[in-house]
């Protein structure tokens, strides 16, 4: 059941004094926009461990602003590299489907949080007027999690690139060995020397050789 609906029911039953308590303990609703399921799970798990938050994931970005409005969230988290992020900016304009204005979190007691978030690669949209101490744990967790994910992504891309380069260099070495009848070490030395003379990377020279040989064969 929607925790807000619970809050509303209690409001009728127990009267105004308890209402505040109910509201205070009411969970924050967080929406995470992330197409990659694995990444989304990692973020959701981290947020749930950090505390009482109802976390929803939106994976399909078509009509994003409307999808988000349905959840009426307190915080929206999205990867800063996601091109669909601009769709969220509509939420910051008063005439948006979400009645409560949502702003990127920039000021308040937790100043510097937005900057840290941007550096970690997460953009956080927060309903205007939410208290900093309520938001901070969620944002802190998101920042830490996005940092790890970003690192992993960079490492993965680097590894993939290195592997591909290695493959091309090996093929180029093979071509040289066959064409010139030299040893593997000599073939590699020739690649390195050429790269140095032409002020290019070994991988580039290797790629040029492989391409040229493909054209000629």
């Amino acid at each position: 059941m929607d925790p807000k609906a619970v809050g509303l029911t209690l409001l009728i039953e127990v009267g105004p004094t308890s209402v505040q308590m109910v509201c205070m303990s009411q969970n924050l609703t967080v929406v995470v926009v992330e197409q990659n399921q694995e990444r989304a799970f990692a973020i959701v798990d981290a947020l749930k461990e950090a505390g009482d938050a109802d976390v929803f994931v939106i994976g399909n970005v078509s009509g994003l602003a409307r999808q988000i409005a349905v959840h009426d969230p307190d915080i929206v988290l999205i990867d800063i590299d996601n091109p669909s992020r601009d769709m969220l900016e509509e939420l910051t304009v008063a005439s948006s489907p979400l009645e409560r204005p949502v702003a990127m979190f920039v000021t308040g007691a937790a100043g510097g949080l937005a900057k840290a978030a941007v550096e970690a690669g997460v953009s956080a949209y927060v309903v205007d007027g939410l208290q900093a101490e309520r938001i901070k744990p969620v944002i802190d967790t998101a920042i830490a999690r996005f940092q790890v994910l970003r690192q992993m992504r960079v490492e993965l891309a680097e590894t993939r690139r290195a592997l591909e380069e290695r493959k091309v260099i090996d093929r180029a070495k093979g071509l040289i060995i066959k064409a010139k009848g030299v040893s593997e070490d000599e073939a590699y030395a020739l690649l390195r020397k050429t790269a140095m003379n032409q002020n290019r990377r070994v991988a580039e020279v290797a790629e040029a050789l492989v391409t040229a040989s493909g054209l000629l064969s």
Partner: protein
Amino acid sequence: MRTVTLPVAYMPLVDAAPLIVAREMGFDHAEGISLDLRPAPSWSSLRDMLAFGHVDAAHLLSPVPVAMALGLGGIATSLSAVSVLSLNGNVIGVGTHLAQRLADQGFAFDFADAQAAGAALAKVAGDVLVFGVPFPFSMHVELLRYWVAGTDLASKQVEIRTVPPPLMAQALAGGEIDAFCVGEPWGSFAVDDNVGALLLPGRAIWSCAPEKVLAVRNDWAETEPHLLGSLMRAVWRAARWLSQPDSRTTASEMLSRKTYLDVSPELVDRALMGEFTISARGETRQVEGFVEFFDGAATFPWRSQAKWVAHQLAMRNGLDASTAERQAAKVFRSDLYRRELQGLGVETPGASEKLEGALAESTAVASANGSLILSQNVFFDRRIFEPTS
């Protein structure tokens, strides 16, 4: 020569050309700086990169710094638009369904008459017409709103939604939007993708609309006046180079590279040459001055341009128009433009404001050292915007 590296953010669009050319042609090195151009995944990320100091300057939608000065949107960092990077350069297009109905009605797709195009579209559109634009604060939105209000489209319920340009064709094909206003090459991309046809170039609505600006943080402009000057001069020289007809083919090649736009040079050519393929049937249209980087004092940041944008934003968001115009005027820095570029022998206009929409054709006006030709500046409805002083 030792150069200072300057990180600058841009969106991979045709109108990022002055920055890309400044880098590729070495106009930056000639000024002792080295532009480190960083593509941004979205306009909001680009704005944040600039606001939070990840980059020192950016290729920015002209209404963004104005909106920020008016307290609209999330971020409140004070930005300065130190020069205009381009005038015009957007296209309005419709999905194949609407295009077919327009054709059935005998509409000629002249790609020029905004009044007629509005009337024709109003006749064939349903009660609700949904447009996709790249960003809530953009010249795209302002042009659309101005056009809709002044044509038969005013009788329709027009919705404007944000769709990232690379996803525009997909949104059109999926029926999420009926039409769009977007910067090149994305309009031509939709045509080539067989999902839409082009209806109007942005300049058919306003022939002199400031599209993108070179934006910096105010505090950076104050602490690094020398770097700012170098940047402005390098970009100005790049714009001058771009204005030479001989440069266009080379520019298309540069922009189309994988590091920048990563599309075919032919697609970039259409915008730079003003030669458009407007439908899947291959009909072509010629547009004089589709996008302008230099001629007619295009790079001068007129305070009246900022006031026009502020006026529109104020009317829509319930702000006091004259206060908004006053706040916005401080964002377009004609003072810095004069200070940094007059030494180059750049002809700068005598005034910092003009009546927007008041020049039916190119006209000579007084400048600091004599005279200067200003480009045609008209709205499709021939109204004239007089800024509040």
